[in-house]
């Protein structure tokens, strides 16, 4: 844009010069056969044109190139800065990653330690629970055995008495019953 602004006056001047010489050039083309002088005039016109162009265009062109170089240099500097910043950021990120890895490692170690401790505690609890269950089971077994023994003894007693009762009933006659009554009366006497 800047280039266009500086070059525009030079181009305008060149165009004015061409317009000024255009009638002569056209007249010479239609009326005369070109001569050596025509070539000289043409050369002069061209020289004047180039001179005008140079005169008006040198500063804008120089400024353009100067600006362009500055811009390129600025861009280069910016790129260097960006590259440096990026490098610094990459370094920072690497450092952070290293720190995170360290933290992660510590966390893993801690977790392993906690897990080992917890496992030991669980093992101790399990052992204690197992011991308790074993003891309770032993007590229960003893109780059940005792209960079964008592039930068996009770059953045995009931059956024994039932059979004895049946036997006695079958063998008891009036004589034996009278004997029992006499025995009772006799015992009353002894009791007194």
């Amino acid at each position: 844009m800047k280039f266009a602004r500086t070059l525009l006056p030079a181009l305008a001047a060149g165009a004015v010069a061409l317009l000024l010489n255009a009638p002569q050039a056209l007249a010479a083309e239609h009326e005369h056969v070109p001569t050596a002088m025509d070539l000289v005039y043409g050369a002069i016109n061209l020289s004047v044109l180039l001179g005008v162009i140079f005169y008006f265009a040198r500063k804008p062109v120089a400024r353009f190139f100067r600006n362009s170089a500055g811009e390129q240099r600025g861009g280069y500097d910016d790129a260097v800065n960006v590259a440096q910043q990026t490098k610094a950021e990459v370094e920072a990120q690497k450092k952070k990653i290293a720190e995170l890895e360290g933290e992660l490692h510590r966390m893993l170690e801690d977790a392993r330690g906690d897990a080992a401790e917890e496992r030991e505690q669980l093992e101790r609890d399990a052992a204690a629970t197992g011991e308790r269950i074993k003891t309770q089971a032993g007590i229960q077994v003893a109780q059940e055995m005792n209960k079964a023994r008592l039930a068996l003894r009770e059953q045995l007693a009931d059956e024994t008495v039932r059979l004895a009762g049946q036997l006695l009933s079958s063998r008891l006659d009036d004589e034996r019953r009278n004997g029992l009554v006499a025995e009772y009366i006799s015992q009353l006497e002894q009791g007194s």
Partner: protein
Amino acid sequence: MSGVIAQRYARALMNLAVQGDTVEAVASELDDLADAMLEAPQLSAFLADTRVSRAQKQEVVAEVLRQSGVSELVNVFVRFLASKRRFALLPDIREIFHRLADERLGRAQAEVTVAAPLSGGQERSLQEKLEALSGKQVTLTITVDPEIMGGVITRIGSILRDGSLRNQLNQIRQSIKEG
């Protein structure tokens, strides 16, 4: 609670009967009245009916006593009982009075349980032994219960003597159970 109240009334009646030397007669009259009461439940229902006035009840009781011809002591006692709305306690009072009378007169009731009926000789022998043991004149009330299998059970007051085969078998059962 009613047992305690009946005992109180029975003791009071006993004291009055002893003063009048009419223990046996009062016991007999109480028996008649209590039996009559048991045989006529409508009388008990009438006396327990709260819709009937006390005067009407007193009138009926007086009529019953007049017809039964009881002594003045029993007459007054039973009317007093009715006035206190305790007429229903009469059977309990009768029982307690008999026990008190037995104690006072040196008598005892012996409840005897046997597996088979006793002969006359066995009864007399048993009665003699029990009288010798208790030091009282014993009256036997004999119950036959084949379940006891054999032997005799006697109860005088709160003293129980169980010489039955059933009891012996139960003792054997207990000793087996206890190991």
